[in-house]
């Protein structure tokens, strides 16, 4: 991915004082999901976000491509101001790959169609071109022999591979992973993490929410610890894992290990 000096200087993701509150649901109180988050992710950087359940990790990722609106603050992603009303969100999302915990493959489409359809209707590629690109990505993630299978006919690991191929085939500028391995059988996890590792080494800009601390330690350029809707502490993996300064971070890490 050839990066101009200007692209290196300007972060691919930039959030400033992002706040988000969810209205009260049922017996629960109003809930502050994001309490003023500042985040910068530069070109080719891999940022891993960790933190306890409910700390706002998913909400933060989802605000980055406008799946979730914010109450205040600004977000710029891939050169577009997400928080601006006038921004063409579909066009932005096409440039931002997102991989979900539960894959979210189109259940009425085969693996090949899942990867080809968005290219055709969003990118305007011809069917033959889209399918050719789809096949090359399916091959890359190792499921090209399953091209005509429907999601219900694929294992969780295979579905996640197709989902990653679907995102990559759009040629995104940044990839967001929200617990991409959490719904997988243990024996499938390694393969998906290897794929993500490969992407990182090829220079893909990535924001990764995960509970896989081994992955964070090996692959992350920076690890961010979130709690209570805010970034509590961040740094290089060895800094955070071996020398956390904040008591909450240390407590969280001691529970994980």
């Amino acid at each position, binding site marked *: 991915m050839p990066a101009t000096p200007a692209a290196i200087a300007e972060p691919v993701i930039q959030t400033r004082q992002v706040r988000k509150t969810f209205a009260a649901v049922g017996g629960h109180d109003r809930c502050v999901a994001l309490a003023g988050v500042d985040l910068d992710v530069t070109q080719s950087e891999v940022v891993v976000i960790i933190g306890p359940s409910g700390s706002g990790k998913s909400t933060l990722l989802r605000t980055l491509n406008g799946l979730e609106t914010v109450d205040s603050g600004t977000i710029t992603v891939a050169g577009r101001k997400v928080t601006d009303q006038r921004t063409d969100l579909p066009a932005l999302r096409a440039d931002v790959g997102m991989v979900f915990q539960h894959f979210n493959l189109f259940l009425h489409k085969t693996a090949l169609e899942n990867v080809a359809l*968005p290219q055709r209707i969003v990118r305007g590629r011809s069917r033959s071109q889209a399918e050719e690109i789809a096949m090359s990505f399916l091959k890359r993630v190792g499921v090209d022999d399953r091209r005509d299978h429907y999601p219900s006919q694929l294992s969780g690991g295979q579905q996640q591979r197709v989902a990653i191929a679907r995102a990559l085939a759009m040629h995104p500028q940044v990839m967001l992973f929200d617990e991409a391995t959490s719904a997988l059988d243990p024996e499938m996890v390694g393969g998906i993490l290897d794929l993500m590792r490969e992407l990182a080494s090829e220079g893909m800009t990535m924001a990764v929410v995960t509970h896989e601390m081994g992955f964070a330690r090996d692959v992350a350029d920076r690890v961010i610890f979130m709690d209570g809707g805010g970034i509590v502490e961040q740094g290089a993996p060895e800094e955070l894992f071996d020398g956390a300064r904040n008591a909450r971070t240390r407590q969280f890490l001691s529970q994980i290990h």
Partner: protein
Amino acid sequence: MTFLEPVADWIVGVYNFRIVALYADEFARGITNTLLAAGASLALSLILGTLLAALRLSSNRLLSALAEIYIQVIRSTPLLLQIYIVYFALPLLVPATARWPELWIGILALTLHTAPYMAEIIRSGIQSVARGQIEGALAVGMTFRQRAQHIVLPQAFANIMPALLGQTAILVKDTSLLSLITVFDLVAAGMLLNSERIKPNEGFLSVAVIYFAIYLLLLLASRFVERKLAGPAWNKATA
């Protein structure tokens, strides 16, 4: 072979297909009109029903309420009354319709009647599409239109094929009421035979068999459409 003769005689006595054959032209006309009325009303009520379902689901309170009122008014009044209202009142309201053939009036009435039922089925179908499917479509950059066309509606319609088949079967049977506004449908063909020959079996059994055959074709068609919309594994995936 001789023992078959009394059986054959008995069959011809109960159901004389030669008489039915004499009325082949009338039956052909009746089938044509029944299929025209049902086919046109089906297509139009699916379009109007999808529109009504969209209005019901829209966040605009007024539009949603208007659609709801229309649906409840139709569901609370007899179809026969609705047909008579369209047949007798519409030409007074819209003079141009006075020159319409009865079949058109019938199609209009059946469409207005069936669309609300289709709308409620389609609405449940749209709501049955998992949130994750929409998020997957959002995340790759699909617009509202693209999501509706490529993801939500195909899955919604595949999910509701059995219910749509049931409602369509009712629609096909409801076309028989159009004989009351002088549309020459299948039932009218059967009545003509019976009144001229006093042969109720030949008249009405034939009609019943034809209705059943139409239903079987619809059943096959619904399986075909489901497969087209959502692939061969759909019901296994969702069952």
